[in-house]
């Protein structure tokens, strides 16, 4: 089932120097339930813009985006209930504890108390957050903050989760735990949009990928499909090759590819209980 459908998405920003800046130019892709969809690209490629549109924070200039079959423009309220969004820009409040923070968002999602608190307990236990549940945001480490953000995104049990460079700045241990959480969520049938520019993460996690560069979609498909298509088994080299071709203008956006086989170099076992 297609949980995320992006068709000809365009986003233009007014720019004092250029007049208009095309952050996204006709980007299309589809992400399905039970898969991790990697959105790849260098800095400034348009990943964050695309994910902000998916999260209803920004409005598309043109094109169509549907999440869980709700239109992000017309049915933004339903979309917000269907997603959990974690990014570097979604920080935690300095003067709230981890528990208060998650509780606040749970109540914003209108979860009744008899559902909210058991779920909070479960999430805190699963993400190993009980140790710092009363710690205010200002005293949390980066890893703690990221866990709290993930807990906040999971509190209403959304079918779609969006991670925008969520592993940036995390140490190896926490990054590994994050990957584990993502794989658990995928195994539960959730659709995960995962933006990163760490190739090893992509190889570990992603079932499908879309590579964006300068607002344009360079290619999309499974890792195997991309490897076959570009005759390059090293994904980092493949990525670099695509960007170089993108600079030369050799690439046109490809239509969304079909579901391919998973290519995971490390099938890390699921850790912790299901969320």
């Amino acid at each position, binding site marked *: 089932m297609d949980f995320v459908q992006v068709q000809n998405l365009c986003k233009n*920003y*007014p720019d*004092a*120097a*250029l*007049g208009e800046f095309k952050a996204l130019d006709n980007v299309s892709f589809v992400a399905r339930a039970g898969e991790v969809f990697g959105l790849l690209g260098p800095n400034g490629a348009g990943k964050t813009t695309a994910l*902000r549109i998916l*999260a*209803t*924070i*920004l*409005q598309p200039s043109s094109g169509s985006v549907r999440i869980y079959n709700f239109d992000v423009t017309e049915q933004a*309220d339903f979309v*917000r*209930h269907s*997603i959990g*969004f974690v*990014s*570097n*820009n*979604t*920080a*935690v*409040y*300095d*003067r*709230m504890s981890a528990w208060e923070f998650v509780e*606040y*968002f749970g*109540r*914003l*999602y*209108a979860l009744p108390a008899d559902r909210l608190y058991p779920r909070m307990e479960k999430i805190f236990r699963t993400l190993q957050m009980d140790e710092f549940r009363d710690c205010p945001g200002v005293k949390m480490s980066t890893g703690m903050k990221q866990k709290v*953000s993930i807990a*906040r995104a999971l509190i209403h049990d959304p079918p779609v989760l969006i991670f925008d460079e969520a592993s940036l700045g995390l140490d190896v241990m926490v990054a590994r735990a994050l990957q584990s959480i993502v794989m658990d969520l995928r195994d539960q049938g959730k659709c995960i949009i995962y933006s990163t520019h760490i190739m090893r993460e992509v190889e570990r996690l992603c079932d499908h990928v879309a590579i964006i560069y300068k607002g344009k979609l360079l290619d999309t498909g499974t890792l195997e499909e991309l490897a076959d298509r570009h005759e390059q088994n090293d994904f980092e080299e493949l990525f670099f090759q695509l960007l170089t071709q993108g600079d030369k203008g050799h690439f046109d956006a490809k239509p969304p590819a079909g579901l391919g086989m998973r290519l995971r170099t490390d099938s890390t076992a699921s850790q912790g209980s299901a969320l």
Partner: protein
Amino acid sequence: MNWSHVKLIFHREVRDQLRDRRTMFTICILPLLLYPLMGMVMLQVAQFHREQHVSIGIFGYENWPSDSPLILESSDPSQIRWKTLTVDDSIGATLEQFQTVQTQTNSEFKNKSTESYIVDGKAAEKLLRQVHCDAVIWVPPGYHRSISDNPLVILSNQRWERSQLAIRLLAEELEGWHLSWIRTQLAWTELGTALVDPLAIRQLDVSRPEVKRALVWTKILPFVMLIWALTGAFYPAIDLCAGEKERGTLETLLCSPARRKEIVWGKLLTIMCFSIGTAMLNLASMHTTTSIVMTQFSQLGATDMVASLGPLPLHSMGWLILLVIPISAMFSALALAVASLARSTKEGQYYLMPLLLVGMPLVMLPMIPGVTLSHGTSVVPVTGAVLMSRAMIDGEYGLALLHLPTVMAVTLFCCFLSKQWAIRQFESESVMFRDSERSSVAQWIRNVWRQREDTPTCNESILCGLLILVGLFFGRLSLSGMPQSWTSVVQSTLVIQVGIILTPALIMATMLTRCVRKALRLHRPRPLDMMAAASLAVCLHPTYMAFAAAVGKEYKLGEQTTSMLMQFDSIISSTPIWQVLLMLALIPAICEELVFRGFLFAGLQRNGGQVRAILVTAAFFGLSHGVLQQTITASVMGVMIGWIAYRSGGVACTIAFHATHNSISMMLAWYSSRGFNSPHCLSWAIEHCDGHLAYTSTWGALSVGIAITLIAWFATRGSVLSNPRSSIGLNDLHQQRVKFTA
């Protein structure tokens, strides 16, 4: 609108602010500490001032009249320490020099028979230092024989504050001695001492003490409270908007189920809560402190003025609380909108000063002597509310209740606009997610040139309007005074209309747009529309005159302006009517319409901004008239003309309207000043009244009906007709003259 979201956000934000030590210090601790500390300092200063003594030395006291000694013995309670000094040879030589220096009357002694000698020599300063005195009196030899022939020499150094104080105290002492001496002398004659004080006055103050005490506070308290309400709103607003952007928590909230409007409401209520809290805490702290300090002052023997202040009247607190709620709501919404523009806390603080500068005149206006609550002042935001609270504190409840609906309507309307602006800011991606600008002016200019369109942008239109207003300000300053002849009237009209108003718009239309015709909204008009616009001007003129008269009654013209208008009337009365109509009706109509309903309107109406275009061009049009009364009437008429410009799609109809309106005003003034009576054929419409031509009530009523019909006709002509462009013509002071005759 989900109010449970608003409530949740409000609770969280309040709790968050209460946990912030910086906010709590500014909002709560500072007010509680500030006034007691200030009061303590004031008390200490007063005590120090009271205990401060000055030394005054007297040379040659043996020359003082022995029958009427100077205060030496009786000066114990005063602050003066007297020192009798002996003149030795060196000092005597110095003193002798002082008799030759130029004399200058000292303000402290202006009503007395003595004069002070101001010397510039180093010797004088050296003398003062030598004898360790703040001032020195030299009683010259022979003074006891004739005090009028031998003036006292008083040395002081006005550069020293203690010396200034010594002179002031000495003046009081000498005045007392002077009166005593006169009485003594008169006692020896048959004239009696009544000559000294021939006028006896008994003053009775009928004001009640509590009202009198409230008088000063009514001016101080609203000012202090509004400043704190603004401050109390702004710092939380910065933290809740710019601070959250900076910390990255705003995006967290934006992707939550709460809508932007709900987020704004939650934050707005929080800011309002703290704004009111700050103002109230300040008020309470001030009340407590003043009660104590004023009591202490009265015990210290304070002056009547200070004593009359007394402690803060308690009943005034209640009225101030009522005042602060709507005002805080408005300030909070404004602060929220302004703070949302900032990307960081630091940047947000830069915006505080402009907001204060905008708000300050409205807060200061009620403090101007003579400004009271009236129909005119009640419509001014903030000012009206302050004046109403003052009326309530003064016990003028009837007056306050009379203006309560207007003040509340204006305040609530401003609150609504501010809140809408704040919501709009939160819904704007360019505001919420703007990055740092690249500041390349050359590139920006290239971009503006490359991306020219047929019509100007909204920003270009506003810039043009502002440039014109600034130009008019300096232009009117340079054209000092009223024109003395028709030639100077023509010159000033051309300079203002063509040079200052039209030229900037023409230059911008040429350089910033691809099509000057479209930029100025020049379209071929339909004759029927033109006729309808001109007819509408004729029919609306009586209503306009009545409105202008009402405005003139509420905001009276000064004597100087009135005399200038009369002089202007006399100038135009001696000029042929066709010249008057050309220069004061047609040219202003063309120039102003091309600019306001042309260039400005074209930019402002883009992206469906027709209402914005009508209102903003009306405001610019009104402000371009300089005189407050004309600004009001022209702004109102500007809305009408803007609507015609919108319906007609161009400026031709508005020019017809404007020129017709101006022409009628000019003709009425011209014929009135020449003493013409109404022609017989127009006697049903125009009559002679108090030396001026005015509309009859019959035509007044009839014209309203016809005007409504014509407006309805315009309204049903379709969204873009081919021609009307309106105008109003109030560009001259002269027309004001006519308005008041209506």
